[in-house]
C-alpha cells in the first residue's frame, strides 16, 4: 500500500532582543560565565514582578506579518506549571488563550512543487535555564531563563521531510534578514508531530511527537526513521502504534518513547495576573508594519530577476546586513548583479582577511558605490578597484581621494600604454634579447616593469597583449 506522511511542526525561535522578556537582564548571548545575566526576577526570587519587554511584542508581530498571520489586537499571558530545577519559578510564562498571531500561511517550494503550509498560531513565551552536570552534582545556569521565544505552530500540512526542512530554512532566512532572530545553533528548536495514513485517506493516523530537535539534519533523519516505523507497523503489523512523545537519538538514528511521567503532565495552565493584557492599537501596528523589512520572498524574486544565482541569493539573505548593503548600494545607482559580486566576493574576502565582518560597518554603501562606479565607467580597472577596497577596509580611506593620491584614476589609452612599453623595452635590452632567445622567464620581468611604470592603471590583459605584440615584432 502507498502511504502519505502527515506532519505538523512546533518551532521555538529565540528572539534577538537586547534584554530578556520580563526583566532588563541582557540576552543570554551577552553572557560569558554561568549566571552572568541573572537578576532576582529571572531567578525566581520572591517580590519581583514581570515587566513586559515591548520589543518582544514588536518582533513577534513582525514574524506574524512575515508569515501572513492575523495579529490578535488583544493578547494575554498564561502560566504553565511544572517542576524542574532549570525553571526557577516552577512555572513558565507563555500564551494559551490569546496568542499574539493566528491563521498564517507560508509557501514552501520543493522538488515536488510548491504548497501552502498553514500557521495555526505564533505565541510569545520565556525560555528555561539549563542544567550542567558534573560528577555527582548538578548545577543550574539561569542565563537563558526568560530569554524571549516565539513558538510557531503549524497545522498538520507537511507531507515530506523535504518540505519540513525547506520550511525551516525559509523561516531561518526570513528571521535572520528581518532581525527577528540570529537563528544560531540551538536558537531554533523543533517538536515534530508525525502520523502516516494510506494515500487518499482523509483520516489521520496515530500521531507521535518527537521533541526538542535543533539540527535540521537530525529533524530530517528523525522524520525518515519515524515515518518508516509507522509504515512498517501499518503494513506488517510490526508493533502497535500509540500516541506518545518520543525523542530522537542522533547516534543510533532511532526514536525512543519517553517515560510516561514526562509526557502525561497536567500543566494546569491559567492566566498570569501579574501581566496585564496587551492591546495592540492601530497606530502601533502601523508602526510595526512600517518598520518590517521586505519579505524574504519578494527580495529573493527581485534578486533572481537581476540574474543573481540562487546560491548567492541564499548568502545575501542569510544576513540582513548583507542584503541591506546590496539594496543601499543599488539605490546609489549601481548595477545589482555587479554589486552582488562585489559584496559576496571582494568585500567578503577583503573583510575576512582583515579580520572584520559586515557588521563592523567599514564597508558602506556610499564607499562601495563610488568604487563600483569608477570601475564601471573605466576610471580605474577592476584590480585597482579592489586595491581601493582594501584601502577602505584596512585604512578607512576615502575611495575617490585614494585613487587620486595613488594615481590610479588615470584613464589610459592604448597609445599611452604603448609609449610606456617602448620605454621599458628600450631600458632593458638584455631582457628583450633573452625573451627573443626563448627565455620566457624574462617576459615576466618586462611585464612587471611596465605595470610598475603604469602604477596599476590600465588593463593588465591589454598591457600583456601589447607587450607580446611588440616583442614579436
Amino acid at each position, binding site marked *: 500500500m502507498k502511504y502519505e506522511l502527515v506532519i505538523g511542526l512546533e518551532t521555538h525561535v529565540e528572539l534577538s532582543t537586547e534584554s530578556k522578556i520580563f526583566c532588563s537582564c541582557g540576552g543570554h548571548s551577552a553572557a560569558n560565565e554561568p549566571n552572568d545575566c541573572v537578576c532576582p526576577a529571572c531567578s525566581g*526570587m*520572591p*517580590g519581583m514582578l514581570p*515587566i513586559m519587554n515591548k520589543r518582544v511584542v514588536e518582533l513577534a508581530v513582525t514574524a506574524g506579518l512575515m508569515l501572513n498571520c492575523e495579529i490578535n489586537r488583544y493578547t494575554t499571558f498564561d502560566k504553565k*506549571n511544572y517542576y524542574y530545577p532549570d525553571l*526557577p519559578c516552577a*512555572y513558565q510564562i507563555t500564551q494559551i488563550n490569546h496568542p499574539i498571531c493566528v491563521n498564517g500561511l507560508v509557501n514552501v517550494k520543493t522538488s515536488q512543487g510548491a504548497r501552502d503550509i498553514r500557521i495555526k498560531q505564533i505565541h510569545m513565551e520565556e525560555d528555561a535555564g539549563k542544567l550542567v552536570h558534573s560528577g555527582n552534582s*548538578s548545577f543550574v545556569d539561569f542565563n537563558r531563563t526568560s530569554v524571549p521565544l516565539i513558538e510557531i505552530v503549524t497545522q498538520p500540512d507537511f507531507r515530506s521531510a523535504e518540505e519540513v526542512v525547506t520550511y525551516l530554512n525559509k523561516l531561518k532566512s526570513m528571521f535572520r534578514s528581518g532581525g527577528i532572530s540570529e537563528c544560531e545553533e540551538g536558537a531554533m528548536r523543533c517538536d515534530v508531530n508525525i502520523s502516516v495514513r494510506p494515500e487518499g485517506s482523509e483520516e489521520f493516523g496515530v500521531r507521535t511527537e518527537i521533541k526538542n530537535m535543533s539540527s535540521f539534519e537530525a529533524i530530517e533523519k528523525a522524520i525518515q526513521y519515524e515515518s518508516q516505523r509507522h509504515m512498517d507497523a501499518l503494513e506488517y503489523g510490526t508493533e502497535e502504534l500509540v500516541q506518545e512523545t518520543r525523542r530522537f537519538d542522533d547516534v543510533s538514528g532511532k526514536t525512543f518513547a519517553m517515560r510516561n511521567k514526562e509526557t502525561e503532565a497536567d500543566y494546569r495552565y491559567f492566566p498570569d*495576573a501579574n*501581566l496585564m493584557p496587551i492591546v495592540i492599537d492601530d497606530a502601533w501596528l502601523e508602526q510595526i508594519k512600517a518598520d518590517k523589512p521586505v519579505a524574504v520572498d519578494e527580495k529573493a524574486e527581485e534578486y533572481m530577476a537581476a540574474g543573481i544565482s540562487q546560491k548567492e541569493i541564499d548568502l545575501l539573505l542569510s544576513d540582513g546586513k548583507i542584503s541591506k548593503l546590496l539594496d543601499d548600494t543599488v539605490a546609489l545607482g549601481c548595477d545589482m548583479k555587479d554589486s552582488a559580486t562585489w559584496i559576496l566576493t571582494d568585500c567578503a574576502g577583503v573583510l575576512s582577511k582583515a579580520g572584520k565582518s559586515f557588521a563592523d560597518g567599514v564597508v558602506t554603501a556610499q564607499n562601495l558605490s563610488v568604487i563600483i562606479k569608477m570601475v564601471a565607467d573605466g576610471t580605474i580597472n577592476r584590480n585597482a578597484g579592489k586595491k581601493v577596497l582594501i584601502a577602505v577596509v584596512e585604512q578607512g580611506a576615502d575611495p575617490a581621494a585614494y585613487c587620486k593620491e595613488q594615481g590610479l584614476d588615470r584613464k589610459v589609452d592604448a597609445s599611452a600604454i604603448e609609449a610606456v612599453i617602448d620605454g621599458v623595452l628600450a631600458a632593458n635590452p638584455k631582457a628583450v634579447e633573452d625573451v627573443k632567445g626563448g627565455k620566457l622567464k624574462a617576459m615576466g620581468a618586462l611585464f612587471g616593469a611596465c605595470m610598475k611604470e603604469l602604477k596599476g592603471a590600465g588593463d593588465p590583459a591589454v598591457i600583456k597583449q601589447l607587450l607580446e605584440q611588440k616583442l614579436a615584432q
Partner: protein
Amino acid sequence: MNKFAVTINGQGTIAVDDTLLIQDAPATAGSRMLEGFTPLFSAEVVDRLQQKGYQIAGKTHVGEFGLDLVGEFSYTAPQQGTLQGAAALAVAEGDVQAALGVDMNGATRRAAALAGVDFLKPTYGTVSRYGVISCAASGEQVGVYAKTAQDVAKIMTDIAGHDPKDGTCLKTETYDYTPAKAEGKTVAVVKNLVAKADDGVKAKVQAAVTALQAAGVTVVEIDCDLFALANTAWQILMCAETCNNVSRYDGVKYGHRAANYKNIDELYVNSRTEGFNFLTKAVILYGSDVLSKNRYKDCYDKSLRVRRVVREAVTKLFGQYDALLTPATFADGYQAYEVTEAFGKVFTESECTALANLIGTPALATQGVQLFGKAFDEAGLLGLAVALEKKGE
C-alpha cells in the same frame, strides 16, 4: 515591639509585615520554607517610606503567607497558634505609629478589628506590589494599620501611586486620602452577615450605626448574597494563585532544603513537606485541584466569570449606597485552635472580607467593624471612620 517582631531600629515609628521585603533583612513570610532567605532589594513601599524620612522599627510576624485568620500560625513567632495579629497589636499597644501589611485574604482586617485599630486595604492597583512576597497576585494589596483614620490617610499618601516596576500598578501618580465629610452619606448595613455574627460583634455594629447616624449619615439595612458568592470565588482564585506562586519555593535556590534526599523529586517533596505548614499544604492541594485539566472550567474559569458578575452587581449597589457596613469577623475575639482546622475556619470568616480581594475595591476595618466602598473611594471610607471614632459623642 520585641514581642511582635525582629527589631531593626529602636527609633523606628513604622513596622512592616514580614510579607514585605527590606533589603538585607531576612524575610520569611512566616514560613519555614523561606528560612535563611535575605532579599537583595526592598519593597517599593518600604523605599518610599524611607525616602520620606520614616524609620522602620522592625518586621512583624505574619501567619504563613498571610493565609490564616489573624497571623496565628507564623513560623517565626515564639508559639504557634497564639499570636493574634502582630502588626495590629504593635500599633494598638503604641509600639509604632503605623504598620504596613499585605491584605490577601482578610487576615490583616480581621487582626485590626480584633485589636481595635484601623486597617485599610486600598483599591487594587493603587499601591505597588513590588517587593511583596506574593501569593494571590490578582487580589492582594499593601495596606496600612494605624490607630486613627488620619494616620492611615497620611501613610497611604506616602506609599500609593504609580510604580513602573509593577505591571498591575495604575498610572496615577498620587491619590488624595483626606477623609471626606460623612454627613449626608448613605450606608447600608449588610443584615445577613450581621445575623451570623456573635453578640460582641453585633454590639460593635450597633455602636457603629449609632455613631454614623449621629454624624448625619443615613443608615439602611440590606440583604446581600454577594459576600458568600465572592467568598467561594475568591477561595478558588486565591488558592490557585497561591499554589502557583509558592511553587517557586522548591528547596533548590534559597530557603529551606531538606537534609535528606536521594534525587530531585525527593529534594522537592521532602523540602516542601518540612517547609510548609498544614494550612499552606491544604491551600496548595486545593489550588492544584481547581487548576487541574478536569476541574479548570467548572472551578477556576467559572470563578473568573463570577468575579465579573459580582463586580457588576457591586457597582450597581454603590450607585445606591456610599458604603456597606459589615462585621470584619463573625467571632468577637480569638480562640486558639489547631492548624489542621484552619482551612475551614478561615473560609468561614473570610465571607466578611473576600469581596474586596475578589473585585479590588477598598475595605476598611475600623472600630471592630468593616466598611466597603467603591473603587478609589478610600477618602469616603476614611471620612466615615472619622465619624465612627467620635462614637456618637
